[in-house]
């Protein structure tokens, strides 16, 4: 693996390998000194043109735990404000000896472009509504490990609820869960499904999912309730009539929580809109027999990103012949 741009570029064995390597990273993170020297000669630069808390800090923590040097570029305090072009910015940073760019940008496809501009490795940390591959991996990892299932989620039923249209998380997580054998149903109003779904008689190619517009049809049968964030910053049109109405139809309410199966789990990629996607007190989930995996998703994010960074350089990436 030279770059990680999209989970569609990886086959089932690649994904299983990344998750198994993440098991090793969990062991490293559990030590008194949670650090290994694997990437001590490498420099990882996070190149974020969109706001982020958890993803950027998670990648930077992962890089530090592998002993890499870390650089942080934030667009708001950079020469981008002086009119420097993206290409020049990347060239400048690459000339400083960056080995890996971790890129987030509002334009789908930008991380792929960067792979053509320089010799550095590129990890996509979210590009537009395209992909967020490490989120997909960490979701698959968190779910399979918390269920004690290894790299196999066959028979597990997932409802992914909310703003699929603007969601790069949905594209990556659906792919990862599907590859491990889970069956995913997208639940959203038609206005929040990707354009290809609208008016289509069947589910569009590339989406291994079923579609429903009614969460109450499924809520009692699913093993996993995966709530997506309402991306209000991307909504320049009236996609929903009001947050309150969205919550009534697609949020986790007390009535829906009461119908969820014992042993089912709740996931959310964060950051959460309290009162919209989640209209219950999360501290009460355990009493209802529902496990809240949201914090574990964040924790596992570090291990999974360590696995990705390590695999970029560790998996015989410059292999010579011989043993």
């Amino acid at each position, binding site marked *: 693996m030279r770059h990680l741009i999209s989970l569609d570029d990886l086959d089932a064995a690649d994904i299983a390998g990344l998750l198994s390597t993440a098991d090793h990273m969990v062991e490293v993170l559990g030590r008194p000194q949670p650090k*290994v020297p*694997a990437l001590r000669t490498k420099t990882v630069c996070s190149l974020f043109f969109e706001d982020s808390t958890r993803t950027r800090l998670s990648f930077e923590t992962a890089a530090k735990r592998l002993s890499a040097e870390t650089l942080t570029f934030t667009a708001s305090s950079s020469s981008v404000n002086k009119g420097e072009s993206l290409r020049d910015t990347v060239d400048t940073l690459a000339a400083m000896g960056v080995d890996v760019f971790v890129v987030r940008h509002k334009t789908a496809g930008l991380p792929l472009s960067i792979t053509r501009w320089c010799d550095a490795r590129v990890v996509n940390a979210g590009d537009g509504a395209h992909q967020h591959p490490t989120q997909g991996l960490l979701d698959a990892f968190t779910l399979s490990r918390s269920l004690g299932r290894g790299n196999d989620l066959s028979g597990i039923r997932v409802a992914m609820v909310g703003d699929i249209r603007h969601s790069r998380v949905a594209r990556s997580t659906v792919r990862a869960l599907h590859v491990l054998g889970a069956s995913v149903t997208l639940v959203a109003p038609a206005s929040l499904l990707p354009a290809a779904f609208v008016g289509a008689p069947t589910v569009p190619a590339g989406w291994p999912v079923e579609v429903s517009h009614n969460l109450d049809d499924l809520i009692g049968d699913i093993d996993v309730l995966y709530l997506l964030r309402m991306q209000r910053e991307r909504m320049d049109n009236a996609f929903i009539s009001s947050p309150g109405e969205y919550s009534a139809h697609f949020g986790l309410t007390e009535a829906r929580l009461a119908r969820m199966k014992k042993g089912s789990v709740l996931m959310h990629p964060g950051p959460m809109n309290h009162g919209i996607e989640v209209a219950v007190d999360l501290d009460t989930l355990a009493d209802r027999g529902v496990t809240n995996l949201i914090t574990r998703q964040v924790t596992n994010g570090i291990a999974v990103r360590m696995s990705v960074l390590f695999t970029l*350089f*560790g998996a*015989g990436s410059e292999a010579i012949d011989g*043993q």
Partner: protein
Amino acid sequence: MESNNEAACVLPADQVRRAIKRIAHEILENVAGGGREPFVVMGLARGGVWIAEALRDELRNIDGDARVECGSLDVSMYRDDLALRPTLPASVSHVPCSLDGVEVVLVDDVLYTGRTVRAALDALIEYGRPKAVRLAVLVDRGHRELPIRPDFVGKNLPTSALDQVSATPEGVFVSAGSRA
């Protein structure tokens, strides 16, 4: 890295068992005050793990009071040749107890350049400060690139640097390598 050449068996299964038995006796004579003090046999993932487990069973067989624990160590994140060789996810490290003050016997299947053992020493000290660290290998094939020597050896095996050596419970095999 399978070779098309016929693999020659240089140590059949019964002799592998005898070699492990002999190493166990030598360990009991030389390590941890004759096994009176606690010590750990630590297999290097993946090839050394089955040998470490066999050694533990044999040690307990010989002396029911031997205070031996068995662990495994994944050294892939400590290698100096990370990008040069495929690192497959081996078994996750398992350290059975604190290593502070206890004697540790590192166990590997084939000792070659010594770089795996160098990485293992770095990995090991993350878990504590052992009283002493010894090295047991089933096969020493030579070609050392570092000042590392084994304390316990099952078989010394002169090889060419191109040969492939594999050590399994079913026997030790050598296939003559060639640059394809």
